[in-house]
Structures are given as C-alpha cells and as structure tokens.
C-alpha cells in the first residue's frame, strides 16, 4: 500500500462513477469498482465527508506499468465537490 494523497483528474459517468483516470501523464481505464465507502470523522473541525472508491484500473494503451497489468487505486472525493467537476484525490495505490 503506497500513500499518495495527490489530486487526480477523473472522468466519471452519469452516476458519478470513475471511468478514466489521468495521472502522471498516463491515462487509466477503470475496469471495475472494487469497493466504496464513506468517511466522515472530524466534524468538530467542520471537515467534509469523503466518498472513497477503490478501483481496478489499467493503462489505456494496455501496457503494464512497473510490470503490472492492473492496479488498485483508492480515490476519494469531498462531498462539496460532488457533481462539480474534478476534485478527486488519489489516496493510495494498492501494491
């Protein structure tokens, strides 16, 4: 598990599900959504809810990256950003 916490561009479908990811000059095609969850901890700091998604993705060109055909990537979106465009964050890459 590698912690990243970096903004990432994401294309979503009409149900706000990621379909393509753009990161470090690469385009990833999301083949399936493995899991999703919601975290909402620091309410006293007025922190927003985060919607998390764990996706299985591969490079759009079909080429493996670092020897891996697919990768599991954990993304999250703050609730204020829902429906407003690209404010996704890449949280972790699951090795």
């Amino acid at each position: 598990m590698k912690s990243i916490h970096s903004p990432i561009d994401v294309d979503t479908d009409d149900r706000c599900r990621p379909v393509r990811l753009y990161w470090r000059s690469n385009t990833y095609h999301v083949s399936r959504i493995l899991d999703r969850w919601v975290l909402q901890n620091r309410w006293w700091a007025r922190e927003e809810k985060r919607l998390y998604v764990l996706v299985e993705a591969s490079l759009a060109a079909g080429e493996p990256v670092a020897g891996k055909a697919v990768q599991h990537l954990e993304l999250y979106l703050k609730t204020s950003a829902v429906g407003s465009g690209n404010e996704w964050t890449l949280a972790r890459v699951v090795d």
Partner: protein
Amino acid sequence: MARLSWYVVFVHLHTRSWFSFGAGGSSPEALVTRAAELGQPALGLTDLHGVYGMVRFQKACKAMGIHAVVGSEVLVDGSPLVLLARSPAGYRDLCSLLTRAHLASAGLQDGDLALLGERMAMSGARSVADVGRLVSANADFANPDSESPDSSAPSGFGPSDVDDDPSNAPNVGEIRFVGSGDTMTPLNILPTPKRPVPTVTLELLGTYADDLICLTAGRSGTLWQLTSRRQDTAAISWLRTLREIFDDSPGHKACGRRLYVELMHGLLPEDGTVAARLHHLACTEQLPTVVTNDVRFATPANWRRYDLLTCARLNIRVSEPHAERPRNAEAYLKSEAQLRHLLPYPDAFDRTVEIAESCRVDLVPEYITPPAAIIPAGKTARSYLTELCDAGLQDLYAPDQRAAAQAQYDRELKVITDLELEEFFLVVHEVVSVARQRGIRCAGRGSAANSIIAFLLRITAVDPIRHNLLFERFLHGERKGTPDIDVDFDADRRDEVIDWMERRFGIEQTAMTATLITYKLRLALRDVAKALGWPMPKVDALSQTVPSGLANEVTEYREPIQSVLGDAPLVDLLLERVADLHLCPRHLGLHSGGMVLSRKPLSHFTPIQVSANGVKMVTFDKEDVEAMGLVKLDVLGLRMMACLSEGAALVHRHEGIEIDFETLPLDDPGVYELICSGQTVTLFQIESQGQMHLIAQNQPECFDDLVAEVALFRPGPLQSGMIHPFIRRRRGLEPVVYEHPSLEPILADTYGVILFQEQILDVAHRFAGMSLSDADDFRQLMSKTHDPVRMGQMGVQFIAGAIAKGVPPPIAESVFEKVSHFVGYGFCRSHAAAFAQTVYHSAWMKRYHPAAHLAAFMQHRPGFYNLMTLEEEARRFSIPTLLPTVDESTARYDLVRLSDGRLGIRKPLTSIKGLAEEAVEQILWARLAGPFRSVEDLATRVPDLDRRDLDALAKSGALDTLTGSSRRALWETGVVANRRDAGGDRSHQPSLFDMPLLMEEDVPDLPVLSAAERLSWDYRSTGAGRVHPITLARRHLNDMGIPTIESCQRTMVLPGDGTSPKATSNDLQGPVVTLAGVVIMRQRPPTAKGFMFVTLEDETSFIQVIVHPKIYEQYYELLIKPALLFKGPLQATGTWRALLAKEVWPLEGVFGGYAGFPSAAGHQNAGDAGKQVVRAGQALEGDGSGDDLAKIAAGGSVFRSRTRRTG
C-alpha cells in the same frame, strides 16, 4: 397487527435509541417518526443491555400506527447478539436474561436477589461488593464445614472490613444524593466505569431462547469479525453453536426459524465483501439471512450527537480515535431503496417483514395490574373496601356531616370500581395500617388527599369535605393509568416498611422504580466541553458560570461562557452541541421512594437491576411504570415525621404526656401566634427567610391560611405574581375581582387568584369546557412543560373552548394569560393541606414542648439550619444545650431536668466528631456496670477505645466531669492511652500488682483554655459552641457602636412599620444600621434576578441581608467570607426585618485593623506567648491552614479564630 402492506418488503429490526445510554443518538420517538416518513409499517428497537426505552417506543409506534418489535442487544459470552421477543413469554425470557446479565455485572448471582431484601443501610454495607461479602459470609456461617476463622459469627461485615478506598472496590459505583431537606436518597449510576459490562453465558441463553429470535449482530458481532478476518472455520463453528440454541428443526418445541445471519453495509471499507461472505456462509449452513443497518440514530443530522455521546461515555476527546466511534454518518434509518442499492439479497429483505409479523409483544396495555390484596374469606374486594369505608365514615364524621360525606364517598366508589382499583386501595390501606401497628408514623399526601375514600381508610389525614378538595385531581373515569399515592413515613423507620412490603408482596413482585436522569445545562456543558478538549480547570469553571437549567437554554449564557473560554473558535460549536443534548438521557438512577408492587413477578414486565447500594430496581421510570399498568406506591421518608415521633416519645418519657397528633385540634391560637411571631426555625416548610417574610405579610390565623401559606411559596405562584394580590386581597387592601362570573366558585376561597393545581384543572374544565382528561393534561402542561409550541396549541384549545361557553374573547385570552403564567410547580390543595398539618404539628410541638421538639429536631435535622443556629434557637427559648458527657449522654439527643425545673437538651455521644459508632456502643454497654470514675477507668473498661476516640471525647468536653477541664482530659487520655497500649493487651484486667495508668504527678499544671480555644474545640468536636462566636467580638463591636441583631429588631420600631395586623403589607424602609455576624446561609436563587440573600447571625438573633446585584458585584470577594459587617437601611414588614446592604466589611477587621491578622484574643505577633495546647507525649497539634474552627454554616463558612499556638 394486520399484515403489513404487500408493497413494503423491508423493516428495520436492529436499532438503538439514546436509551442505550451513550451508545445511541436519537430518541425512540425520532426513530419511529423517521420510519413512518419512510413508509415502513414496523420497527424494531434493540437497545444495548436493556429495554429502557421500550415503553416510550411502543407508545410512539401506537401513535404513528406502526407495529413495534421488542428486543435488545445482549452480550453473550462477550459477543453481542440481537434478541427479539416473539411473544409475551419471549419478552419475559428476555427480561430474565437481562436481569441475570446485570446481576453478573454487579458481582451477584441469581439467588442473591432474595438477599437484597435486606436493607443495606441496616447491615452497614455501602456497596454491592459489601453485599457480595455478606453473601459469602452468610454462606460460610451456614456451612459448618466452612473454614471461616471465626465461626461464631459472620465476619467481614463491619465498616472496618470494608475497603474504604473506592478505587479498590470493583463494584462500587458513584453514589450521589438527590432530593433535599426531608427526602435525600442515594442514587446509583448505571453503568459505572468500574462495573463490567453486563453479559450472559451461552448456557444461560439456551435456557431462555425458546421464544426469542436471534440476529447475529452487525459489525461488532463475533460472526462479522471472524468473517472479515477470513476465519471461516471459526465463523461456522460459532454459527453452529448458535443454531444448537436456536434450533429450528422440526419437532423442536419452539417452532419457526429463530436464527438469522445479519447482513449490513455501513459504507465502510470491505463491508460489501464481508456481507457477501456472510451471505455465502449462511447459504452453506442453510440459515436465513436478514438485512439491517445496525442503526444508531434516526437521521444523519443526529450523527454528531451520537459521536459526542460515545466520547462522553468512553471519557475521551473527539480528537482521540477509538474503535467504538463511528467513522461515518451512515448508521441511520435508511430507506429500503438505499439498502437495496448496497445489498443485493432480496430474500434477506423479505425476512425482515416475516420476522416483524411474527413478533407480538404489547407492553402498554389498557388495564392495570394491581398487587393482590388480602381479602377475608367470603368477601370480594369491593365488599371489603365498602366495609372498611363504612366504618371510617362512622368514626370520622359526626351524624350531621355524614350526608355530604356519603354522597362524595358513593361518587368516588363508583369511579374506583369502574377503574377496578379496589385492591389497590386495600393494599395501601394495609401498608399504612401495618406501619401504624408498629408505631411508625405515616401520612398520605399529594393528590391522594383529595379522596374521601383515602381519608376513610386512614391513608390520608386530610378531610376533603372540610377542605373542599377536588377528587378529580386525584382520579376520574377518564384518567389513564394508576392513581398516584405518596405516603410519608418516619425517615428513621422507612426501611422497615420497605422490608415488610418485600416480604408481604414477594421479593420477585417488588422493586423500586428508576428515575431517568437527562442532560441538563451544567452536565451537558461539562461533558461537551470535556469531549471537545478543554482542560478540566476550564471545564470546572464553565459549570460554575451557569445555573441549573435546561440544556437548550445554553445560548442565554454565551457571555459568561465566553468570559471563561475567551474567543475560542469552538465556542459556537460548544453551544450548538450542548443545546442538542436537550432531553437526552444520561443515565438511570434510583427513584427516592417509588416502589412497584405487582401480583405477578416483575420479570414479566421488566428486567431488574441492582443499584450500587444494593437496591433492586425496575428499569423504567414512574411514567413508564404507570403506562405498563403497574402500580407504584411512593414510600417516602420524611425526617420531620421522624422528628415528630421522636419529640412525642421524649415528651412521653420525660413528662408522662401522651401526644396523639391525629386528634389535635387545628385551631389553637397559641400555635398561630408562634407562627406569626416569625419564630419559625424548625417548623416544617416555613423556616426559611422567604417564608418568614411571607408570614409577616400574610399572618395566617387559621388552618386554611396555613394551607395557603404552604402553597404560596412555590415556583408556580411566585413566578405568576400571585402572592401579592392574594395577600392584599386577604388583608382587605384591595377588592376581590373575578374576570368572569364562572370563575367565582372556583377561586372564591383564594380571593380570586390561582393558587392550586386543582384550580388550573377546574378552570380548564369548567371555564374552558375541556374534558377532565384534557384538563388534567393541561394542568400537567402548566406545571411541568416549558414547550412553547405545546402551550400555544393548548392555548388555542383553551380560548376556543371558553368562547364556545359564551365567554367574551378578550376575557378568555386574559384568563389564559394568567393561567399560563402559573409555570413551574405548584402544590395541589390536598398536598398543601397534608403538608399544612405537619406544619401545624411541628408548630404545636414547638409551642408547647419546645425542648422535646428541638432535641428531636437536632437528632433528625430535617431543616436547613446548622447545629449552631439550632442551639441558639434553643437558647432563645431558654433551653440550654448541654455538652455530651460520658456519664449521662446516650446515642441520641435527650432531655435533662435541670435544678431549676427547666428541661435542657443533652447532646449525645454520637454528636462527637471522630468518635466511632462502635465506640459509642461500647461506652454505653460498659456504663451499665456503673458510672466511670476516671479517664483511666474509662480506658480500662472500654479497651477498644483507641487514641482517636479518647482524644475526641476529651476535646468535646465529655470527660470534663471526670477531670475538671478539657485540657486536662486531653493530657490524661494521652498518658493513659500510651501506657495502656504499650502494655500490649488492652483487654488485660488490672490486678493488685499493676501500676495505675495515670498518677497525679503525671499531670502538670495546665493553663485553662481561652474562650477562643474553647470555641474552636467545641466546633471541631460537635459542630456548635457553648457560646456564639460573635460573643468573642462583642466588646469590640460595642466599641464601634454596632448593636446586636436582636436589639435592632426589638428597639427599632418604625413609625407605621406594619406591626399592626391591619397595616400595609408593603415593606417599609427604616434607619441605616450596621450589623455584624456569622454568615449561616447564602442564597442566590435563579428567580431572584441576581439578588443574593445572606442570613447573618450573632449571639442574639439572625437577620436577612439583601444584596442588590450591583452590591454583589462590588463586594463579591468579601461576600464569600464567613463573618461580615453589613451597613444599610433596615427593611420592615410587621415583625420581620431585613437589611438592605450598601456596604460590606470583613469582620476580622474589627480586631485591630490591618496589622496582619491578629488573634481574637488580641495577640498580634508570632512571638507572643499565646495559649498552648499541650498533649502528653505528642508534638503540638498543628492546624497548618489556620482553620481553627469547624465549619459552622451550611455553605461551608468558617469563622477564623486567630489564636496562635506555639509549641
């Protein structure tokens, strides 16, 4: 329940409300409302470790037309399971399981419940741990083979055997007291940090599982945990273990499926995966699945409240992570669609409906279950009740009064019969009869005093015909639930009554009611501030800035709160969260006197828990108990009742006079003269300064006046401004007017003002045309609720009803305005009348037997003045209070015939601080063999008196008759104790060859105690001095022209000052005076708008000092001092005086001004040869803090003697 609608395929079965006490975030009503909004026709409530909210839940479900499913989340061998009751039998089994879980948590076993019938107070136990020791000690004692070292008696059960360190007693919970004045009772707090979590074993579950349905619980459940860790083998094993218990195979005595695998998805990582694995597991094991959301709150908006409550329960800050804290806000009551989106298992949804339909338990019946009365053979309850009442009618009413009484009696009997309450009245009659047979003084009060049947049965002593009392306030055909009867018993003997009731009605059929403690302002502020991370000093300071009040009033105190916290960014959040805790339960406590009596075992209705001080209690409060159709009798201990009983006993013993309070005429002018003189210290209900002021204005002359006096000084009349109109009209100073003629018959005897709760009910019924039931609800609303919405709704109904009866709208609105101002508690007339009887009796005792009355009062201390004030009051009545003495004192205050024929009060040995109770017993036993001749004789004959005991006796003056002085006594006890204990064997009987423990040459010449030292020793020993502390300052005060308080009251008669009965009731202002004294009380009531009231006492009397808010601010730091000078104009009303403070000084300035802190005896410097306290064999006794005198005021004031001790 009709079948659920066909298009509904889901019901929430696993939910917690805030009755999980810190583990649930919404009220049961909020959950029900949410379910109704979602169109779900049923809902299950499964609070943690209990069914505390179940009655409210069922009532809410009935109101919303929703089917209620009853259950609980129970720990089984440490693993939570959701158990749902299928039937009343299943509910009974669930209650039994929960009872056993809580017993186990308290360290008790099933059979120990019977032993808890023993009153812990009588056995000296202070904790459940003590009960545990008692249980084992008794078991050992009963077992001849036990290895108990002392087989002659149960051991390990005196206070000396109790571990006094609460941190070492595993089962001691916090003990707090509630009540005030006469009825103070220890509460327990459940659960306590030190008690293990309630849990049962699998084996026990098996015993009670026949009519229960089991869900495997959500994320916290063992099955979920094992499955998430992929421990499938263990998970299967667990499932199979459960299946053996909830066997649903054909031929098993319990039919139908009873074990379901719970599937949930709380939108946390891997929830979907785990749910899928669970579903697979269930299919493999051929077990049905069911969908839940493991609900912890009704809507997402309640999530923060839930997290905060969790933090408060765990005693952590919000910044600290914890496994039990929610990681998101998804555990709310979701819609079926939301859950289907997450959990694609259609069958599991169907089963929720199947389960809901199979569970049918109704806790809120439309009937009452009274306890079983003893009815003579050949009679029915009704015929026996009639027989007793007929006899009462003959005894209590003269022939010319019987017609009216009979008519009322017939009317009441019909209502009682229609409501099937005959046995209830017979039971209460039996309880009071048995108490009286045992010589235990008792009296019914409250709304029951409105009933002539209660009067005829001698339950109450108030004649409702004579006092024009309203039966409907107590009972009427439309009333829901059981009537409320309170009975006051002699506080000293109340436990005997409870013991008897448990034996008579059955251990399993009796228990005390609980009381629900909800978050109020101070506690909410503390818990929220702590959770938000403020340090404890700030938290403590915060709770001092607000009065007691409602949590949702917190924003009114923003400024003082900000003055403590500064401009912290979290202040807004703090206020928001505190307000959000309004009405939220915090914990369950023990009701001070409510005892539930049932003809069936209480486990049919409720789990039983055990308080930290070993009292059995149901897990519902009195409202819920009533809703369940159970009968509750309030068995209250009234210390004034004990005082009257003891006073009568003293009179009988010393004067040979038998007093029968029941037959005392209530019109003795001497009694009213005493009351009107303002000498009301020690009189029930009327000894406060406020009451003295009221009496000075009202001047009660007869019993009805006394009833009004008692009722006037309550929040209801106070806040509605009824007092002055009442007094002025009664005194003929203004005319009596009625806004509408229909109000005259209701308010005539209270001069047109609303004084009693019955009048609210009567006005609502007769003036506004409400039904009796609605009028009763209206009355309760006016008395208890501050809900503006409900009051607004009631107002609309009230005004509309009055208009419909022909009342002009402006008058209807005006009357409602007056009624609505009767906010806060007011007495009902019958209650005021019952209390007024006790007022009268206490006044009668003080008037005719003051010594006995004051001695009994000192013994039981039912009032709020300290011992010093009581002894001063005795002195004012020419009754000396004599020191305790080892020769004559017993364990109780007693009377002594003096040489001049007067009666004096002898203080008991138990009044000596530091003298153990056992020591007192031993002295009394040893004295039976003859008086003590010397200190040595005492120490030898009572060898268990240790050094501390002997010193305490010496310093109190109890040995003065043996030694001539306390200082010499202290020297002698030191020498004797040292030599006796050095001998090694205290019980050694002296022989001819033994040297005496004390010889004359052992005692040097010792200086006499100074007045200040004597005062100091007296206060430390017995809480009061032989002289008043101000006596020591009197010369200096005289030099400064400061008069005594009594002379000020006596000689400063102001022109037209109102001493004439016909004078104005307005307070008059008199000349400016300066008075000095000890502060014996400080009050700053929330209703007083910032005024403080100080009671100042000197050696002659006491006076109320009124401190305006501006003066309070100016002299705040001085006003907390124990002895003060006040200057200001006198205020007079009749014989009552007060001083309006304009300037304040500390009293110690009287003794030499500002050159340090000189002693009261005039010594200025540390080098002065002050008086010495010399003890044999020991260094000088130091009192490092300089706090030489014991606390003398209820508020903890200390009068500082400045005697320096040099050693």
